[in-house]
């Protein structure tokens, strides 16, 4: 398809859906409420939304959907660090019931016992999986969970009078950037530790950075390189030694469920991503959900509301005074709570362990196969095993051919695969990160590697073919320059029509300029 922009489908007078009319009894009672609106509050004309009959709206979005590659249709090994698992269809069906869909959080808890029970049960499970004492499922995403971690850490130190003193957070360069970014928003200075020559987190560098000003270390483990920090206990101990807390970003836990636990390494707080590690689908980029698990010391700081079991019934309690408060509406993303619960129940303890083991087996098999491609390498920890993913490099191929990793990724799309190209910071040159999870078969991994090898071969034999990709996608090579120039970027259709065609919307306004304050 070359499906138009939705505004281009508008035909005056068409309707997509009908709205109930105002009842006569209401109209008789209240009169014309729109005309009665105070001066300036009544919109002069309806918004310039398109007018399209229902079937054409449906067709439009179905066609757009077909121009998209969900993991249900793809071998999504290239979405490294993102843990693309199979999201079982039964779990989607289990949530699609009025008993969840049409539930309001303020209903009588007697009417929401099922939802509360599932939250409570999953919290119990996540406590066991992490070894922690208390769990909240309120955070609506992975990075949101990281924010919740640092918000709790900040509240913890403040409750002990050390809020001002401890103004630094230490992370590692291969930890997810949200650890650094969220801590920054919470008011902390960020210290980033780089790996040692072998790619392992550098314990000595950590010790050098730690001080009584340290509020916390915030680390991912295994890191995005797939390397597990063997000295993780020593890292935690070193942090504790200066009075800092240890926060564990468990975004990369898919290879270690049932193998080792956050609390066993001494961590005070951690978060898991329900939409990655526990199979909830990624939804084109959310909703996600996190489980924040904490030690008993940190439990009072968890966000509210809390679900408790009292005499066999489930009750909702506001969090106590020490709590950081609400981090999102209500109880968090209940859809993913039910999905994650169902996934764990479908696997059980043996199944979780097996999932981890197969994810790791798949990854090491993939590593073996990728390293057989001329020009590909896996920097760091050379000759050692990895956990669930590997950050590879095409540096050698780039030096030979001038073809970049990004170009190879785009050309992969022509083979029906891809890998994503965001591997900031570019510590590893010409990077690509592959994570096969436990959900792809040996055959599919082989198919993926074969495509990678074919593109690498093309880079040597016909580099222009790679450079000018894609060749058989919905859309052709795009001009990203448009997107970084304020004069040319167009974030909405109305901005596009305004900038490129001079069309000024009827409801456009001249905005008062705030030069004075903004200049500061």
């Amino acid at each position, binding site marked *: 398809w070359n499906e138009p922009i939705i505004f281009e489908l508008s035909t005056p007078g068409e309707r997509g859906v009908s709205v*109930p009319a105002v009842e006569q*009894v209401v109209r008789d009672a209240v009169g014309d409420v729109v005309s009665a609106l105070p001066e300036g509050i009544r919109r002069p004309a309806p918004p310039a939304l398109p007018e399209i009959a229902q079937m054409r709206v449906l067709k439009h979005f179905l066609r757009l959907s077909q121009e998209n590659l969900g993991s249900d249709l793809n071998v999504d090994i290239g979405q490294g660090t993102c843990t693309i698992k199979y999201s079982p269809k039964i779990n989607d069906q289990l949530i699609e019931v009025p008993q969840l869909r049409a539930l309001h959080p303020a209903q009588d808890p007697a009417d929401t016992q*099922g939802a509360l029970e599932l939250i409570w049960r999953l919290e119990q499970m996540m406590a066991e999986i992490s070894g922690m004492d208390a769990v909240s499922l309120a955070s*609506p995403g992975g990075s949101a969970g990281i924010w919740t971690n640092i918000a709790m850490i900040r509240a913890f130190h403040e409750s002990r009078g050390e809020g001002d003193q401890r103004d630094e957070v230490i992370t590692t360069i291969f930890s997810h950037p949200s650890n650094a970014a969220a801590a920054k928003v919470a008011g902390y200075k960020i210290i980033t530790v780089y790996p040692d020559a072998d790619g392992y987190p550098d314990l000595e560098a950590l010790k050098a950075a730690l001080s009584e000003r340290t509020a916390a270390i915030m680390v991912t483990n295994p890191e995005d390189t797939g390397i597990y920090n063997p000295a993780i206990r020593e890292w935690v101990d070193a942090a504790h030694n200066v009075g800092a807390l240890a926060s564990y970003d468990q975004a990369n836990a898919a290879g270690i469920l049932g193998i080792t636990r956050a609390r066993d390494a001494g961590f005070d707080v951690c978060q898991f991503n329900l939409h990655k590690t526990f199979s909830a689908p990624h*939804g*084109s980029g*959310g909703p996600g959900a996190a489980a924040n698990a904490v030690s008993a010391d940190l439990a009072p700081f968890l966000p509210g509301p809390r679900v408790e079991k009292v005499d066999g019934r489930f009750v909702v309690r506001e969090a106590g005074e020490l709590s950081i408060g609400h981090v999102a509406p209500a109880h968090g993303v209940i859809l993913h709570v039910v999905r994650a619960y169902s996934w764990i129940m479908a696997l059980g303890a043996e199944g979780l362990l097996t999932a981890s083991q197969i994810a790791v087996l798949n990854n090491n098999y993939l590593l*073996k196969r990728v390293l057989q491609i001329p020009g590909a390498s896996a920097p760091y920890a050379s000759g050692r095993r990895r956990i669930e993913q590997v950050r590879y490099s095409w540096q050698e191929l780039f030096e030979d051919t001038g073809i970049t990793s990004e170009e190879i990724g785009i050309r992969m799309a022509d083979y029906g695969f891809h890998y994503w190209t965001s591997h900031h910071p570019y510590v590893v040159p010409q990077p690509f990160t592959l994570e096969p999870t436990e959900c792809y078969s040996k055959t599919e991994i082989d198919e993926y590697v074969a495509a990678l090898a074919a593109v690498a071969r093309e880079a040597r034999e016909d580099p222009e073919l790679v450079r000018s990709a894609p060749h058989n996608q919905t*859309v052709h090579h795009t001009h990203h320059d448009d997107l970084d120039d304020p004069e040319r970027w167009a974030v909405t259709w109305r901005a596009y029509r305004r900038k490129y065609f001079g069309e000024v919307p009827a409801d456009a306004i001249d905005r008062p300029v705030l030069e004075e304050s903004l200049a500061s």
Partner: protein
Amino acid sequence: MTSESFVHPYIPNTAPASREAMLAAVGAESVEEFYADVPPALRLNRPLDLPAPLVAEQDLARHVRGILASNRSTEERLSFLGAGTYNHYVPAVVDEVIRRSEFLTAYAGEPYEDHGRFQALFEYQSLMAELLAMDVVNVPTYDGYQATATGLAMAGRLTGRGRVLLVSDVLPEKLSKVRDYIRASLEIETVPATAGIADVEVLRTLLDGEVAAVWIETPSATGAIETGMPAIVEAAHEAGAIVVVGTDPIGYGVLTPPAVQGADIVTGDIQSLGLHQWFGGAHAGFIAVHDDPRFVMEMPSRLFGLESTDVPGEYGFGDVAYERTSFAQREEGKEWVGTAAALWGIASGVYLSLMGPAGMAELGELLLARTRYAQQALAALPGVELGDSAVHLREFTVTFSGIRAVDVITALRGQGIEPGVAVDDHTLLVCVTEATSASDIDRLAAAIAGVIEAPTSPTSPLTKEHGA
């Protein structure tokens, strides 16, 4: 290693032959080798203590459905609950689109293979932009709480100032989130609302060169529409402060959008636009600004933009000003960005496409009319007063003079009615939508009347006077 006989439908390579072939290919005796870096002291070495699994899908389904069966949804109860989560009708086409595997299970593909996702979210941004009359709207963040918090943080960064003046009633949960989120750099001071809306006179006295933002909620936590926005904007801008609005866009088919009234940053939640209630678990936040690069460059979220391709006339899509983000800049980026709520953005895009201008206008009128009708019906009851005299959309409060709000709630729950949320001892927050018909409202009023009469004298109802 778990037993060879554990074969699971979700894990293809539990097939014994595949597992063995892969171990052989990598030259490993067992999976244990891959965990060489995990110190023995940290190994769990026992099975996790989890419930016995339900590997057969039918057993799992029966178990989970059994638990959920104890819920009673708002389809089985007559609900007047709002307070941040609203019971608006979701057209079937919306659910059809967002349950497509292609959207539901996509993530971070490139503009080439995920052209459809980019276009759908660009269209969401564009449709919201028309509703809001602003040129820049982000790919959704988590929820309205986060959106407003970020809107205020942007104002703080833009102005370099430290005060926020909140002039509206705001949901306590939202205030809790916003306050904790921005408190490293911004302090929120509350200017109490009068008659449900902002007290511009008091606001003027508080504005100074340290005020980064004036924060307006409209509709407010009580459903009041802020009618004084032009005056607020004028005062704020005079002081060099940025006007940040938190809103629910459901009414902008008939109501003037904040941007047209001078707001600088408009934020809010789109749950009302095509998302079910989901126990409060399906929210998404929008942040809208004018196409002013100073504002755009302060947005932490992704922004999908339209771009040209090698083929003339073809539309491509990509990330606008990606280098702003924490993906690119870590702690040097603008706040942080992660997996938030893109699918709900697609849902709202479909919703707005279906509703069109006529649908949004008619819905806005219906909500205004039914709100007024419900206000009249309840205020006509003895001992019941409206909380304020403002214009309300969808929500409003009533105060009970002779009875506690929680007692009203308890009594009506016994009749299958959720009459609203108690906001204090004697005040009830009532919400009406297109799902609550005039006869539903009549039923609510009658039920409350019954409760009011019961504790006093069932044969001689109180007489009262009340304003319209």
